[in-house]
């Protein structure tokens, strides 16, 4: 399945299978009246075509279509996530480089970096919003900072691991050229670390969306997907397709972030085909 056509066919096939599974499950449970593990009806599992149809219906009475509302919200969240991702990835990379060069700091700082990720983001988010808000920074920037907080950690860990993965002989070679640490970093260690770093960036790209959505919730920002999710979860019992449709768009945003990183990796990382992670 090397060709683009082949990959496209697999994608369509898997999508069709998932669709079939959803509708099949729905049909079987409604038909038999099974209620385990939950009751299946139009609220718990709306028809998928209803979900997609809802995107083309007006979001409010005589308002714009749901899809255009959600796309606008996506653009807002995407801005927060992109800025957050950029800040988080840069901070994560720099921290990884620093830790790789100073073993003492590894022992000193790494536990705190780990601890930072175990703190629930819902605890950190309001603090960030309030603190940065008091500095006069716009709300969306606070959300970007929260998103960065969820982004940096995988990048730090993989940068550290990747920088240490440089070939021993290649390091001897650099030594034979009397190359200083800075040169060794940019000409050898960073290029060898790139596959590791991109593996982390792919994780972080989707995490940055999650971070932005979650960051919007306690900061009472209404313009993004977080606001829409909050809104439609309140109307879930009467209009479940709204939340599901928001969900679909949020997922699509995450996937598109992922694809951007994938494309960047294809351009930046030049490796023997069998070595591509």
């Amino acid at each position, binding site marked *: 399945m090397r060709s683009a056509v082949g990959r496209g066919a697999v994608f369509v096939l898997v999508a069709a299978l998932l669709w079939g599974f959803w509708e099949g499950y729905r049909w079987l449970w409604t038909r038999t009246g099974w209620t385990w593990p939950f009751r299946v009806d139009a609220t718990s599992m709306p028809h998928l075509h209803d979900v997609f149809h809802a995107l083309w219906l007006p979001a409010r009475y005589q308002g714009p279509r749901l899809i255009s509302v959600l796309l606008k919200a996506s653009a807002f969240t995407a801005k927060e996530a992109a800025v957050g991702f950029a800040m988080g990835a840069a901070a994560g990379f720099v921290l990884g480089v620093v830790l790789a060069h100073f073993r003492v700091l590894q022992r000193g700082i790494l536990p705190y970096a780990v601890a930072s990720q175990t703190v629930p983001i819902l605890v950190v988010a309001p603090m960030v919003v309030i603190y940065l808000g008091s500095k006069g920074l716009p709300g969306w920037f606070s959300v970007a900072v929260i998103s960065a907080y969820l982004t940096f950690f995988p990048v730090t860990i993989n940068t550290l691991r990747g920088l240490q993965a440089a070939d021993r002989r*290649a390091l001897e*070679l650099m030594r034979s*050229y*009397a190359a200083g640490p800075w040169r060794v970093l940019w000409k*050898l260690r960073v290029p060898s670390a*790139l596959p590791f770093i991109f593996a982390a960036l792919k994780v972080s790209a989707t995490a940055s969306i999650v971070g932005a959505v979650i960051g919007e919730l306690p900061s009472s920002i209404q313009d993004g997907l977080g606001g829409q999710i909050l809104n439609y979860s309140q109307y879930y019992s009467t209009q479940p397709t709204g939340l599901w449709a928001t969900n679909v768009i949020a997922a699509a945003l995450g996937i598109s972030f992922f694809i951007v990183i994938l494309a960047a990796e294809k351009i930046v990382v030049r490796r023997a*085909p069998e*070595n591509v992670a």
Partner: protein
Amino acid sequence: MTVVAVKDVSKQFGRGGTVALQGIDLEIAEREFVSLIGPSGCGKSTLLRIIGDLIQPSSGSVVVNGKPAREARIDRDYGIVFQDPVLYDWRTVGKNIALPLEMAGWPRRRRSERVREMLDLVELGGFGDHHPWQLSGGMQQRVSIARALSFDPALLLMDEPFGALDEMTRERLNLELLLIWERSGSTIVFVTHSISEAVFLSTRVVVMSPRPGRISDVIAIDLPQPRTATTREEPRFFELVTQVREALHLGREAESIA
């Protein structure tokens, strides 16, 4: 002129650890091709690394090009070739060859000129824009030789450079290496554990024995230059191969007595 002077060098790994080398004395003159041969564990690669200041001796001194080994390394007086080509996957063949030139701060135009010359020297003209993984093992090793020679070092250190290649490729590269040696006018220190390779290439073969690593014999190879494919068929070649083999066995007996 003496290019390498090793005086009473010993190397012990860790306190109370293995004695890799003991009391090594070796002088290598300009334009010589010296092979270090011995069983694994005799410290031949360690000696090569000490000459290149990639590791430090526990005692003794190493002078390269009339200066301490460390200064010689910082002045980039030698090029090194390993058993693996150690090419950077993310660089094209041409950019791999240019790596030491970038380190030495050569301007771009001079770099690309030199890369073209080096590609011709190792007969890889037209492969400059390929990536390493598109080349065979033998071609990759030729790239690594071109990289080591690109900045015209007086000394070339080679650590079993053809050890991972098949016999046919190896013999062809042996001939090519001799041509390169002749054209470049450099001095070569060559680590190998193939007796016939050592005899075929060298002007002198240094026989080493293990535990502790030391020089057990030095055999001058008086085969006429330039050497060709038929050199391997001359009676004198076989005599010298036998002589080196016996020296290796003597070294081993000495070890079992000690």
